[in-house]
């Protein structure tokens, strides 16, 4: 399912990062950094809400808008009942669509928002997403203070929040096209190897996107997947070659970019809904504004993990969504 847009622009972005991310390679590009996991609140879940609210306020501040100016807010996170989104939204007060698509939430939100903006149903839309490493560990894995060994293939959930503001008002970056992915399950049951779970769905979405628009991979200056990690990235490149006979040249994975993999204890890299937006909104967005990168394909990858289903010995399905952003000279 691929859409082309003619009248959607990315106006502004924001990033709020946690302690580990701020020590990563893009530390100086983030709008605001928290140096403790509680962000001045009492619990990790509330800390995630705080970061989400901050990211919304930050993007509005940077775009010089008020909350009342925004027609719609689309947001999602990893926690059960998307609590961070719901509780944050209670204080934000913009009409909300809460979505869950695991770590592919950001791009799914962008696609839903872009479709509505493109059809003139709304004028502007705010898309945000957040994750918290301790909140996610608590819900999906084991207690944070429990030191049970982790495998080299496991990933580290990012702590942070990020927001996008899209509207019909022309800006330097245009939302050009998007592809909604399908759920793929190739029988991986290992919740410590999410890269292997998500790689086939990323490959399928990239292939769908390129074939339906009749493009070659090198049409894009940069193809970014969400959170495959070191090993998932290698699997994706190999899988694209053997399954679709496609070579990915300008390809990278945000999980491998967000942390200093040689010095930070993050195993195979970052993950979580905030991982890709933190990298894109900080570094890549800046490079696009400078004109150094002109066409980017964001492929957010989500492992639809449920501890209950994994315990029932079922494999983990995954989904990926893609959105293409281009630098334009449409500004009048």
């Amino acid at each position: 399912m691929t859409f082309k847009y003619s009248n959607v622009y990315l106006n502004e972005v924001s990033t709020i990062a946690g302690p580990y991310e701020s020590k990563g390679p893009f530390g100086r590009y983030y709008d605001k950094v928290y140096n403790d996991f509680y962000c001045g609140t009492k619990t990790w879940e509330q800390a995630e809400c705080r970061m989400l609210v901050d990211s919304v306020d930050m993007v509005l501040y940077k775009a010089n808008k008020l909350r009342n100016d925004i027609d719609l807010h689309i947001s999602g996170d990893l926690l059960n009942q998307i609590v961070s989104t719901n509780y944050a939204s209670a204080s934000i007060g913009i009409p909300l669509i809460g979505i869950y698509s695991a770590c592919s939430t950001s791009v799914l939100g962008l696609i839903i928002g872009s479709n509505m903006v493109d059809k003139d149903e709304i004028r502007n839309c705010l898309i945000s997403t957040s994750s918290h490493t301790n909140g996610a560990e608590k819900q999906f894995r084991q207690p944070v203070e429990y030191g049970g060994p982790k495998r080299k293939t496991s990933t580290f959930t990012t702590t942070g929040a990020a927001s996008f503001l899209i509207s019909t008002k022309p800006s330097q970056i245009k939302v050009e096209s998007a592809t909604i992915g399908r759920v793929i399950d190739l029988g991986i049951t290992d919740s410590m190897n999410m890269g292997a779970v998500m790689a086939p769905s990323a490959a399928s979405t990239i292939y769908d996107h390129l074939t339906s628009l009749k493009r070659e991979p090198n049409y894009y200056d940069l193809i970014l997947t969400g959170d495959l990690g070191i090993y998932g990235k290698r699997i994706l490149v190999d899988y694209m070659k053997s399954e679709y006979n496609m070579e990915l040249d300008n390809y990278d994975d945000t999980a491998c970019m967000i942390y200093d993999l040689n010095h930070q204890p993050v195993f195979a890299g970052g993950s979580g809904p905030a991982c890709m937006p933190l990298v894109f909104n900080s570094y890549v967005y800046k490079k696009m504004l400078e004109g150094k990168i002109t066409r980017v394909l964001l492929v957010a990858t989500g492992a639809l993990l449920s501890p209950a289903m994994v315990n029932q010995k079922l494999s983990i399905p995954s989904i990926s969504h893609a959105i293409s952003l281009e630098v334009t000279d449409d500004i009048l």
Partner: protein
Amino acid sequence: MDKNKYKALVDKHCPKENRLYNGLIAFIVGGLVGVLGQFLVDIYSYLFSIPTKEASTIMIITLVFLGCFLTCLGFFDKMVSFARCGLIIPITGFAHSMMSATLEYKKEGIVTGMGANMFKLAGTVIMCGVVSAYFFGLLRYLIMGG
């Protein structure tokens, strides 16, 4: 691509865990914990003039306390990550699993949080421990007559 072929592709790219190295570390650290335990038993029975059986109970209490205390101070998880089964298999691992779960849920109340989740990980240990103790006790009775 079918599932088996994909699994082969995944295995090709994913690193293997170094089992020999992990086992060796666990063997050494686990052994050191055993030495510490024996040292405590000897010193307690010498200091308090009590039989070995009672001294070993106090030794277990000491190790459980150490496991809990170091977990609360926030660095026992790093020690466990390094030593793996060397600290998980001894009683320190049991204390660590209980304490970490308790700390995790302390903000959710004494009854609904700490009480309800304390045995989240340790419950399995108790269940398996009680069942295997029953069977080994039975075996001992049948073979050795009690």
